[in-house]
């Protein structure tokens, strides 16, 4: 436990020094608040676009607050997942490649302490980024559109956080199998993407799939209550994430040479 905290502290400090604690939250805040702002100014943007015949009256229904928040969540879905994978792809691989891992593993450090510290370190930054971004977007939505119930926002935040946790578990696992940062990100993205595609094609058989978390998170905003199956999805995501981390630990221990 003590070693885990030492390693975690090192992860967090490292992310401060290389700027990850700044750029990831800011990037997410920009992605987040761009959504309510562009939606708000959409009529003007279209008006200035130019190639609309004069005199055309553009009628765009003003979206509701929850709709704006839900569309923000879908914005995170693509660029967000990509950013998360890219930000975490090298965390194990770099230390293995350059040899810094040697000086860690000559000390009484276990595989599980090492893997857990990497995972927690990255998840903490990601969830902080998401919290700041989503919170700021919530504030903007209240300002420009209408009040959204904060309970709904928090519930959708928690559900979506599980999705982020799942992404990091996949990336960390890939990092123990593959010896190149680009390979790790390619495999992680294909895995997550592939799972999404399969879940969309065979909806009936994949109600458990973690990719559905995104739908569940938007649904809670729109409907105001949890969709059916949400408990199944939540449980399988937690279970799968733990399983992935466990495999990562075994795989890391199986590495012949640190």
């Amino acid at each position, binding site marked *: 436990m003590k070693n885990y905290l*030492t390693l975690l502290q090192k992860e967090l400090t490292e992310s401060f020094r290389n700027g990850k604690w700044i750029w990831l939250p800011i990037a997410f805040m920009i992605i987040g608040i761009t959504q309510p702002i562009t939606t708000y100014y959409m009529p003007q943007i279209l008006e200035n676009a130019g190639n609309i015949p004069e005199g055309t009256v553009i009628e765009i229904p003003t979206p509701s607050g929850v709709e704006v928040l839900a569309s923000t969540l879908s914005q995170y879905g693509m660029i967000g997942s990509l950013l998360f994978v890219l930000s975490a792809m090298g965390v194990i691989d770099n230390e293995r490649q350059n*040899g810094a891992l*040697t000086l860690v593993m000559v000390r009484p450090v276990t595989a599980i302490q090492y893997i857990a510290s990497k995972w927690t370190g990255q998840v903490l930054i990601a969830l902080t980024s998401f919290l700041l971004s989503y919170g700021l977007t919530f504030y903007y939505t209240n300002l420009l559109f209408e009040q959204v119930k904060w309970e709904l926002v928090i519930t959708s935040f928690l559900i979506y956080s599980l999705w982020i946790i799942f992404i990091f578990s996949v990336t960390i696992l890939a990092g123990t199998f593959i010896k190149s940062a680009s390979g790790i990100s390619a495999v992680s993205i294909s895995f997550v993407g592939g799972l999404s595609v399969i879940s969309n094609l065979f909806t009936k058989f994949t109600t458990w799939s973690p990719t559905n978390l995104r739908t569940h998170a938007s649904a809670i905003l729109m409907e105001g209550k949890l969709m059916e199956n949400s408990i199944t999805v939540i449980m399988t995501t937690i279970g799968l994430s733990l399983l992935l981390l466990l495999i990562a630990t075994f795989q890391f221990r199986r590495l012949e040479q640190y």
Partner: protein
Amino acid sequence: MLVNINQLTKSYKQHQAVKNISFQIQKGECVALLGPNGAGKTTTLQMLAGLLTPTSGIIQLTDEAPKDFRKRIGFLPQHPTFFSWMTAKEFLQFAGKLSHIPKSKLANKITETLEFVSLTHVQNKRIGGFSGGMKQRLGLAQALLHEPDLLILDEPVSALDPNGRRDVLEILDMLKEKMTILFSTHVLHDAEQVCDSVIILKDGEIKWNGSLESLKSSHTTSAIQIKTLESLENVFDDLAEVDYKDANTVTVSVNTTAFDTNLLLQRLIEKNRTLVHFERLQDSLEDAYMKVMNQ
């Protein structure tokens, strides 16, 4: 006995890097693992440090059953890599905590160790800007910090310039008073400078294990070179094996130390030869090493 290695083997797909080696290290000893590149030195040391899993064989530290003995070992890899964003002091704090040095002792221990490897003046500088010699000394510092029973150093001086080399060798000289040291090198001279015992490794096998002194004496075939004004033909042939350089110069091989060299002189007087040169030729350590290698 501190370390007991029994039939240690490491095989990869194509070849065996270490073949069934066994040796022991006594407490307080300083042992050099000597051999050419590719002899299996690094592989052996990494297995001892717990970084590499042996294919078979047993590594024991004192009398304990094989378990996690990493906290009792200090290891310096051939090219130590640190987290370049940390300062020297921060890295030692990180390493010390991972080795479970009590908080109350850690700060003092770090100051002391940095002093010992003369890095106090750069303790708050980022490791990223360190020279090779400084990194090597910081590597030594992290290996020493937790006062391990056994210090394992992989080629600690081979990548250094003459100054850095001298610094590290001096540090090792001081350390061997306090600790058991096992270090690898491909330079015989370095082994000779620091240690009294060597384990010579070639192609994954132990070729020699013992003190440098005994290596020298057991492989030495001393000979005596004699030169006279007159011809030396048939003067010594009945006493020993004689190698003629020319008619007036011979090398007489005397394989045993028991051989009485006065016999030769006596014979010269008997045969009325005028002595010009009489020299005892002895194999250097280098020659002995080469002989072991070529066995």
